[in-house]
């Protein structure tokens, strides 16, 4: 047997990802499904002597798709049926997952069902008769605890025999109203005559009658089905005249009736379910009065944790880079290079990347905390609590989490908008995220406010910038309120039970984010750093960073625009480069001033009020290149991308103007 493809398919919150991580370990690639921004994960594992490709399909309740994720899953199964399916269901709530299981089971594809979270099932006193379950479903059903790995060996054995087709599967029959049943089997007979396929003909017949994308996917793969697709639509219209509801609704009714029957045959519930931890925790965490304060407290602790742990690490890393820099300057290899090469390597690449990479601890911690919040189930609660407020901006509660992510780094925040449920929500959140005060901007603010303001004032300046960021988001949200981007989708959010986050999952997730960040650092930011170095070091016959360099000329050219907001040519040049990555603003200032003591130079050149105006501008003006790229790839729209950049520039100038001129009027310098 050559390499086989196995698809992992389940409703959301069934422990699918935990099982995926168990099976593949760190052997994963993460990307996007073609054409859409839904995360695609695949990995490899060894089964006996065979190499298995495992595809993690997006969470879906049904193949009769209503969400983007469900469409991706359905298209994958219809376009490129895998050699086998592993379907995961949550043992504590079988009803929820078995609707999909039945649809998958009738597809005719080889399949194994795993009932996950058996530890919780046992604790609740629920008894599952696996023999009866397998018997009724016609497919192997196995117990599993993905968290501990119990049942994994058994799953692998069964998967192997399913792949070798040692086990005979006899898919279950779901009974429909007679008129529908007849229509389906008539269509199925025609399908069977038209195309030989790995999918069950009844399954195809139902998909054709569903019409829309389901039918077009099938016709794409089997053009011979084209006439049957239009026939199916006619049949559907005819059948629906005799049914009380439309076809998908009738199918769902029948499917879940079958699910109820299946549960009755194979599950014994205890007379009374024990009061679970989730209900008890929610009484406090979701309390009408306590919920929001506790949420803000948790957020505050997260940010405190990130920065109190991260800042010393960051400083240590920066110091390490600095001493490495001075050591490198003494090495023979570097000294053998021509002067320009030395400068490019050390002043350009090494110092620029040093600045960016010293951010790593903060980003790592941020994602660790975030995946803990996400994995524990608290994320949905946060969305619940914030929904009313976010709805004022025509967003849902989940958008708050995207915005929150922005306070760490805008790029993952923009990427994270894909958790939102409609295009409108995604685009609106994407436009708001760049106004969050990300950790890169925070570095600039911490550095500048410490230099320009007294130690007692500086924290209030940074706090004020946070407040400005919140106000900007609310203001722009209200400004964009009249606009509708695409159709609105209903707000339906599941509240999963609380679970202790798994170290393995949290670490893997954080690692993937870090890999992304390092990738960006090694591409965008290297290019950015080289561009700065070039503009500030050429032409070669003048002092680096002086007004005669290319950068200086650009700054002087733009000076009339920036004069009313108190920003001088040197900072203008720095802002220009801050577009490449905001964290290199300070580094750029250092290069432009050509100084060995940046702090002294800055306090000599910039007044506190000018500095404040500069910080306000830095907060609001167009997002960095990496964020812009993320907005472009997530929105698939240049208009939205340009709107984001343009809106930022205009609002930044206006706000800085108010701050600077207002400050001058009040008599500040």
């Amino acid at each position, binding site marked *: 047997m050559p390499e086989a493809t196995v698809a992992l398919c389940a409703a959301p919150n069934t422990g699918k990802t935990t099982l995926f991580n168990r099976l593949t370990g760190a052997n994963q690639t993460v990307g996007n499904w073609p054409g859409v921004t839904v995360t695609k994960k695949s990995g490899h594992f060894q089964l006996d002597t065979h190499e298995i490709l495992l595809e993690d399909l997006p969470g879906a309740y049904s193949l009769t798709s209503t969400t983007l994720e*469900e469409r991706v899953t359905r298209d994958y199964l219809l376009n490129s049926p895998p050699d086998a399916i592993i379907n995961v269901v949550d043992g504590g709530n079988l009803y929820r997952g078995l609707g999909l299981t039945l649809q998958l089971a009738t597809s005719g594809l080889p399949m194994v069902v795993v009932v996950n979270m058996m530890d919780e099932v046992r604790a609740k006193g629920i008894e599952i008769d696996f023999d009866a379950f397998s018997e009724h479903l016609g497919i192997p059903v196995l117990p599993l605890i993905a968290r501990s790995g119990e049942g994994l060996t058994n799953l692998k054995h069964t998967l192997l025999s399913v792949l070798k087709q040692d086990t005979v599967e006899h898919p279950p029959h779901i009974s429909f109203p007679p008129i529908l049943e007849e229509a389906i089997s008539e269509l199925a007979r025609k399908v069977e005559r038209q195309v030989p396929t790995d999918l069950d003909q009844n399954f195809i017949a139902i998909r054709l009658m569903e019409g829309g994308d389901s039918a077009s996917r099938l016709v794409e793969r089997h053009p011979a089905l084209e006439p049957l697709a239009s026939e199916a639509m006619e049949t559907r219209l005819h059948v629906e005249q005799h049914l009380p509801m439309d076809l998908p609704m009738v199918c769902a009714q029948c499917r879940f009736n079958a699910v109820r029957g299946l549960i009755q045959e194979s599950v014994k519930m205890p007379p009374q379910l024990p009061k679970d931890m989730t209900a008890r925790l929610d009484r406090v965490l979701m309390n*009408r009065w306590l919920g929001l304060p506790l949420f803000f407290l948790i957020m505050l602790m997260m940010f405190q944790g990130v920065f109190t742990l991260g800042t010393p690490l960051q400083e240590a890393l920066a110091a390490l880079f600095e001493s490495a820099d001075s050591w490198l300057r003494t090495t023979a290899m570097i000294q053998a290079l021509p002067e320009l090469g030395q400068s490019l390597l050390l002043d350009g690449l090494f110092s620029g990347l040093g600045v960016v990479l010293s951010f790593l601890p903060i980003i790592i911690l941020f994602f660790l905390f975030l995946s803990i919040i996400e994995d524990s189930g608290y994320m949905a609660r946060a969305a619940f609590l914030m*929904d009313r407020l976010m709805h004022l901006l025509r967003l849902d*509660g989940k958008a708050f989490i995207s915005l929150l992510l922005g306070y760490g780094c805008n790029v993952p925040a923009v990427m994270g908008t894909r958790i939102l449920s409609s295009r409108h929500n995604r685009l609106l959140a994407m436009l708001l995220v760049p106004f969050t005060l990300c950790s890169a901007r925070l570095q600039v603010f911490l550095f500048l406010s410490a230099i320009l303001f007294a130690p007692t004032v500086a924290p209030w300046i940074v706090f004020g910038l946070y407040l400005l960021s919140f106000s900007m988001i609310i203001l722009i949200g209200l400004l964009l309120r009249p606009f509708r981007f695409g159709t609105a989708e*209903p707000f*339906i959010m599941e509240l999963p039970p609380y679970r202790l986050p798994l170290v393995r999952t949290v670490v893997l997730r954080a690692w993937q984010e870090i890999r992304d960040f390092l990738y960006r650092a090694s591409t965008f930011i290297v290019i950015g750093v080289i561009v700065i170095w070039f503009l500030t070091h050429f032409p070669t016959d003048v002092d680096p960073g002086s007004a005669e360099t290319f950068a200086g000329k650009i700054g002087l050219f733009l000076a009339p625009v920036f004069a009313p907001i108190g920003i001088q040519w040197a900072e203008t040049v720095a802002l220009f480069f801050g577009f490449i990555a905001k964290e290199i603003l300070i580094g750029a200032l250092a290069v432009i001033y050509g100084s060995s003591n940046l702090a002294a130079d800055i306090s000599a050149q910039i007044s506190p009020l000018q500095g404040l105006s500069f910080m306000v501008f830095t907060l609001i003006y167009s997002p960095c290149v990496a964020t812009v790229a993320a907005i472009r790839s997530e929105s698939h729209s240049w208009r939205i991308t340009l709107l984001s950049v343009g809106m930022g520039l205009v609002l930044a100038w206006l706000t800085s103007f108010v701050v600077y001129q207002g400050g001058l009027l009040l008599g500040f310098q």
Partner: protein
Amino acid sequence: MRKRHIAFHSGQTYRVQSLGGNQGIADRLAQMGILPGMEITIVRIGPMGNPFELATDNGQSIALRNTEVEALDCKLVSLPLIATFPDTQQYRVSAINGNPRQQRKLTDVGLRPGIVIRVEATRPYELRIIDEDRLVRLAQAEAQYLMLQPLEPDA
């Protein structure tokens, strides 16, 4: 303006008659297995009145906004006394929740599942037991444990 007997309140249980006119919500709920005939209970209402956490009789827990809840065609089948208003509406006591001590406070005044009452005043509560034509007073603390089933006006 239509006078509403009953406002949304946590503890109310509704039977879904049909998934209503909003196709987007109806389709999505149906595919999640939330279908006509099912009972859903309002577990809690979010801060500032929105969204709602709903529990289905199959143990699912979902959040919806009130506009989406209102779009469903539902029939109120059970509610706690705390969610009622003084009215001519008659209720049958369907259950008495709470711990044994709280339950006793309610049974001591003669309330038990099956009897029919009318709410004459709230906070504090005055209930008229229809068959005995007797008035019962209850403190607010007990009102959340008495579960009532609204009766059809002509029944």
